[in-house]
């Protein structure tokens, strides 16, 4: 171990120094070293040292989103891994509030919550790997966002370490607070570029008595939009409202047809009333196997597409977009929210997808881009947001060590 590594092990202990760094590569560049702190104080000390030697740092949660937005990395010295900060710090079931370290994965937290008949109604991909800090930092959500909101909607408070090494907190461990700026919300989608989230306080929910996945197929996308439009105007309250193209349905183990999926939760009679109500209106709704949803959520990861874009659209435009992009690969929309995941495996299809999306989508995020697409723009934020975010970063991370 050289003196540099000895300096780091003085902070995190020898068990906290990771020398096998290939699994921590970004854009095919491995870091010089990985460090796995166990406390906020250790993170502060690490970042102070990184500032001292101007060592670029990337924070790693479960690694499910680490590549996003980092298509090219000139220099990458340290990977700061959160896997040793994975404890529940405070859980008050009677208050529906839990505080956990940011490195805890969602699946582990759900197991604890379920013992008290509670849940965190998030379903991002790979819950067994996705960490709470990573979900917040990437603002990653799944199909349940339609009924339960995005991660920021359940984030009550946070502790974090700024890029300059200073630890701070934001928010309060109660379900409402408007004291000072909500920096914790700013960190949603910040992807570790402003600071490193160390602890999150979340509002959890009671487990529903019943939760069922239902679906139906349609022959054309205009029929899908007609159905979605009517459902959105009805007195039903689905957790999710998804639209699948035939390729997507097939990957989910369903017949290869345009498919609408909706999850209904709550009291048994409320679930029954909603599904019956749709059937009475002439919709050929069928119960769907529970595993379909998980297959769909993890599909981009398991399939490793050449290009995976997340498009932000109007809900009403989603079906028409899928019609236009049909034939490029898998199209999976959280249609009620206007979020379309478009994945292509063939180069020609990926070009078609990228050309159309970049020309017409209000916003997009590149979730996966392999050679020869690895240099495409990571996202399309509006110009004002980009300028303001730069100004904030120069305050929080003045040496720009957080990549």
């Amino acid at each position: 171990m050289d003196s540099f590594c000895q300096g780091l092990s003085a902070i995190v202990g020898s068990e906290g120094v990771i020398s096998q760094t290939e699994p921590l590569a970004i854009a095919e560049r491995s870091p010089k070293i990985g460090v796995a702190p166990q406390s906020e104080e250790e993170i502060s000390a690490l970042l102070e040292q990184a500032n001292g030697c101007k060592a670029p740092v990337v924070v790693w949660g479960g690694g499910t989103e680490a590549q996003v937005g980092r298509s090219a990395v000139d220099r990458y010295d340290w990977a700061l891994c959160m896997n040793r900060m994975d404890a529940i710090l405070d859980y008050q079931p009677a208050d529906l509030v839990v505080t956990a370290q940011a490195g805890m994965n969602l699946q582990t937290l759900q197991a604890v919550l379920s013992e008290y008949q509670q849940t965190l109604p998030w379903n991002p991909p790979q819950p067994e790997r996705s960490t709470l800090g990573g979900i917040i930092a990437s603002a990653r959500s799944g199909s349940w966002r339609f009924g339960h909101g995005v991660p920021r909607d359940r984030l009550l408070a946070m502790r974090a370490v700024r890029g300059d090494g200073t630890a701070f907190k934001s928010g309060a461990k109660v379900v409402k607070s408007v004291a000072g700026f909500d920096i914790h919300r700013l960190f949603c989608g910040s992807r570790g570029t402003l600071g490193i989230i160390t602890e999150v306080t979340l509002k959890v929910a009671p487990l529903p008595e019943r939760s069922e996945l239902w679906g139906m197929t349609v022959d054309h996308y205009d029929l899908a939009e007609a159905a979605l439009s009517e459902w959105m105007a009805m007195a039903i309250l689905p957790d999710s409202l998804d639209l699948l193209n035939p390729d997507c349905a097939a990957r989910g183990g369903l017949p290869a047809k345009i498919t609408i999926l909706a999850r209904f939760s709550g009291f048994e009679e409320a679930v029954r009333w909603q599904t019956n109500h749709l059937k009475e209106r002439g919709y050929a709704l069928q119960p769907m196997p529970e595993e379909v949803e998980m297959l769909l959520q993890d599909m981009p990861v398991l399939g490793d597409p050449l290009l995976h874009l997340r498009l932000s659209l109007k809900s009403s435009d989603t079906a028409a977009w899928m019609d236009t992009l049909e034939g490029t690969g898998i199209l999976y929309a959280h249609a009620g929210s206007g979020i379309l995941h478009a994945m292509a495996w063939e180069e020609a299809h990926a070009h078609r997808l990228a050309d159309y999306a970049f020309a017409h989508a209000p916003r997009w995020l590149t979730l996966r881009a392999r050679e020869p697409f690895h240099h495409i723009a990571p996202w399309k934020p509006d110009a004002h947001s980009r300028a303001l975010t730069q100004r904030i970063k120069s305050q929080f991370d003045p040496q720009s060590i957080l990549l």
Partner: protein
Amino acid sequence: MQSLQKELSVIVGADAVLTDPIQLRAYDCDAYTIEKSLPTVVTLPQETAQVAEIVKVANRLDLPVIPRGAGTGLSGGSLAVNGGILIATTRMNRILSVDARNRRLRAQSGAVNIHLSKAAKPFNLHYAPDPSSQGACTVGGNVAENAGGPHTLKYGVTVNHITGLTMVLPDGEIVELGDEVEDPGGCDLVGVVVGSEGTLGIVTEVVARLTPLPAAYRTLLAIFETLDDATRSVSQLIAAGIVPAALELMDKLVLEAVEAAFGYGFPLDAEAVLLIELDGVEAGLDRLQAQAIEICHSNHARETRIARDPLERAKLWAARKKAIGALGRLAPSCVTQDGVIPRARLSHVLREAGEIAHNYGLRLANVFHAGDGNLHPVLLFDDSNPDEVERVAKAGDEILALCLREGGSLSGEHGIGTEKCGLMNAMFSSADLETMRMLKNAFNPDDRCNPEKIFPDTRYCYETKYALRKPAFGL
């Protein structure tokens, strides 16, 4: 002054520039009336571009700008501490579009909260955050304070319902943050501007998320012999996994005032009532209602009344939303605190708060969002009595300190403003506050926009606050 008036008149028209001290008096405070200060001039723009031009004038003349909605704020957030150009958005009140299919509404920031829901109602939608002042308060003011309301227990606060903003930065630049579509693809700037109390810029337009109107309601009034029984019921309802649309508590003093004002038929011998509203699809609501009633009775509820029709429901809600106004019958003035605590600690904290008020010789009324743990202890006083005013200020600070000791927050929905900036050190460390100031520096480096708010180290907090209070009482 005349040249300033002339310059502003060119931008917004002469009738939208107020300099007469009598007219300015209407803008010397918001609904937090303890502190008052006259702005130098008041402007009433109608468009975002006009706001930007006004801000540029302020920059050139090195004057502060103070955004203000309807002036219903309860923490001095629109107080013109050092004078300056007050920008009132009340003429920027247009609903610009309603997109029912996508559940979005775009409005100017001066649009009144309830007008959003009225515009959405033909489509069976509504704008869910419903502060008690929703008949007067503006959506821009709601954004500034991240306002809540009784139904935020189930539906969330303002930030959960805003997807886009147009704002004028303190240098006069107009920016668009977010819009009708979801997922900004970077840091959540909309999320942090909401609740920033007008210190990062002036919001001129909002894109709001609309929510389906519930198909069915069950509205209950549970009547208790003791405050403890009522608060224990609240804690047990939450712990049982029942998430009502609203769960409000009113104590004896409030019931007396409401009865005297409106005569709704509340029991005057009860110590507390809970107003519980359950909503959703019709199926299952009766079972949920039975569960809620059972919990109330297991905590010795004397009686539970169920609103039999929409009229009865409307009456119950009118009583709740007008409760603080009705307290005017009991004292010349009142101050409403806004601390938040974990819901399991309600009984303990209300007892302690009562003792604090008693020790200062003050009357304390409680009408609050019990389901959120968001207290609104109302201290009744005579604002012509300086000694009583000081006791109110001290008792209020002690109650908030109690909330912080319980792991809570200084404010659940009213904001910090000038009222509580001196207490921020008690809730946040110097590093926490430094981080907030860094954010402010990115937006508002010269402290041009709404200065002397939120931060405890403002000159105002240390030197001016008490001096400002005195002339207020002489008015």
